[in-house]
């Protein structure tokens, strides 16, 4: 039982990161129907910027704010400079554009910061642990879970309880109708892109102290976060959170009790099963067009 609890704790910590990534993916998909394959690379760039600012002796909070701002700026600029002019692009085009951005950003990170594995300075210790009976959790993992939940809650409040969130939802439903009602759709789109990118950056900053910083550190978490978003429902923010936590826990428990070699395989097998039963995802909704 102790072991199960420990696997659950590990799964929760990993799942909170998957959930953060999934939220960014869903946020963008809801509003612009674009699958942002550059999400992981934008997050990596933001984390490296934060790393550089920490190296310049800036206080940690300021450095992280700078990193998230850089990620948000890249997201917003990508919308204004690429997606907006290419708004008539085909579905394939909308997939290829973020893929291109991903390659460009990955190249920039490798050229500017190199490809070595680096230690990301973090105020919480990954070695210092809290014990709850036989179950242990490190300061970093506890911080990751708490910060992840706080960020998810803030996003939920923003989207559901503020005028900006209302505008975001209106633009997501119909940009033309929202614009006719006086909502600045382009700015809302840019804000959404910036916000999603910053969320990814936050996941990167929380992940880097645990798995080390390198240009490819977001590859696995992005794939899992993306899968979590699909499992939860691509238009559901709570679904993204649920999908992230479920995936993290399933991976951890499966690895502990069945096989390490097939934990990723198992995770995606579960997703396939879920989509067979509920094609719209766990909390996604089916839209019926009225004739």
């Amino acid at each position: 039982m102790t072991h199960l609890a420990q696997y659950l704790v590990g799964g929760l910590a990993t799942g909170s990161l998957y959930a953060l990534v999934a939220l960014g993916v869903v946020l963008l998909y809801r509003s612009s129907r674009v699958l942002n394959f550059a999400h992981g690379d934008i997050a990596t760039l933001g984390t490296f910027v934060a790393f550089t600012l920490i190296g310049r002796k800036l206080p940690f909070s300021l450095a992280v704010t700078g990193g998230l701002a850089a990620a948000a700026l890249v997201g917003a600029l990508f919308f204004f400079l690429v997606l907006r002019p290419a708004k008539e692009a085909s579905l394939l085009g909308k997939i290829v554009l973020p893929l291109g951005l991903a390659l460009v950003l990955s190249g920039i990170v490798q050229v500017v910061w190199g490809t070595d594995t680096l230690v990301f300075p973090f105020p919480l210790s990954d070695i210092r642990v809290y014990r709850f009976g036989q179950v242990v959790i490190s300061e970093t993992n506890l911080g990751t879970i708490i910060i992840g939940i706080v960020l998810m809650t803030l996003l939920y409040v923003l989207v559901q309880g503020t005028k900006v969130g209302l505008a975001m939802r209106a633009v997501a439903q119909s940009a033309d109708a929202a614009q006719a009602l006086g909502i600045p759709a382009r700015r809302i789109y840019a804000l959404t892109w910036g916000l999603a990118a910053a969320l990814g950056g936050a996941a990167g900053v929380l992940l880097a102290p645990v798995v080390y910083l390198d240009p490819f550190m977001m590859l696995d978490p992005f794939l899992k976060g993306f899968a979590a978003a699909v499992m939860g429902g691509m238009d559901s923010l709570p679904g993204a959170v649920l999908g992230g936590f479920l995936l993290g826990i399933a991976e951890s428990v499966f690895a502990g009790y069945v096989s390490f070699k097939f934990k990723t395989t198992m995770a995606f097998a579960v997703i396939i099963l879920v989509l067979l039963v509920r094609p719209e995802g766990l909390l996604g909704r089916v839209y019926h067009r009225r004739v």
Partner: protein
Amino acid sequence: MRTLAKFVIALAVVAALGTTAIGQPAERGVTPTEIVLATSMPMSGPAALWGTGVGGGIDAWLRHINDQGGIHGRKFRFLIRDDAYLPPRAVANVRELVERDGIFGLISSIGTANCFAIRDYMIETKTLWITPACGADIWAGMRERNKYLFVTYPGYVDEGIYLTKYGVESLKAKNIAVFYQNDLYGQQGLLGVKRGIAQTKGAKLVAQVSYEVTDAEVAAQALKLKESKADTLILYATPRHGALIVREIAKVGYQPTLMSTFTLLDPVMFALAGEAWNNVYLATYIPVPGMGDAKVDATLATLIRLNPALARNPFNASAGVSFVESFLEGIRRAGPSLTKDRVVAAMESIKNWDGEVIRGVTYTPESRQGINRLFMVKSERGQYTKLSDWYTYPRKF
């Protein structure tokens, strides 16, 4: 008159062909002023710490040789291709280097799976291949096909046997666990540990826990290892995953005796794993920089002068020199008229030869396994100390 004209034309054609033949380089990748060498290494991806250190070390050492005038008037041009530790990319890189760039020889290549992927191509194209950094056991049983291969790198199976024997005999290991990469590299290390256990008395393998090279974290593996209650844990991992697992097991309060393959010997591990990389027992096949060997330290100083970034990977950079220096000795011995077969003959004359970093290299027409010795070191407060004399294992190829 017409016959005379035909004779003159024929003579001119023969003369022209002869001149062309003389003007052509005697050997692919060799000109009167240059020798083209290359490598395919993980300069990015999960094993980048190996590639940047080893590749950078080879590159800096060849530049050092060039600065001294090269060998027999020829300077080296060294091409590095990034394979990101992916076997398919290693294959594409090597094909390009051999067929398009026309290299004289391939220096190293990192990753047992990568070496295995390019092995048959290298043998078929009869390209000189110097010290593939991979489990040397993939060459066993291929003696008659290895004419252009020379290796100064230990096999992971031999190393696994040594680590296990040392653990059982000197550290009183009883229950052993292995944390390994789920590919040829890790599997050969695991096989070595199993054979080591079979050759000793009183120890058993209680857990073999793997990870995939793409895994971002290894928390579940740490718990599994803790559950095994092994008193000794042997690592066959990338530096990143090695650092992750020792931190994770420290986090869950599991404190076995730690032993590791030499591929994790670089002091960068102290930066990555911190205190968790204390009291780790490792095997090595070259003297570790900073451990009192003047030649090794001087070599490292030269490397860092030419490429200051190598200060971060002193062991891996020195290992790069150890990969290439017996080959440079072979080129010296081959003389000014350089051909592949002359180098092979010259390399086969190398007997118990000490380089700046590598020691005791011997090649014969029957054996391409240049070294077959290891010794043990221990990490203590950011440094390594020597624990044993050389341990010798049988030559296999």
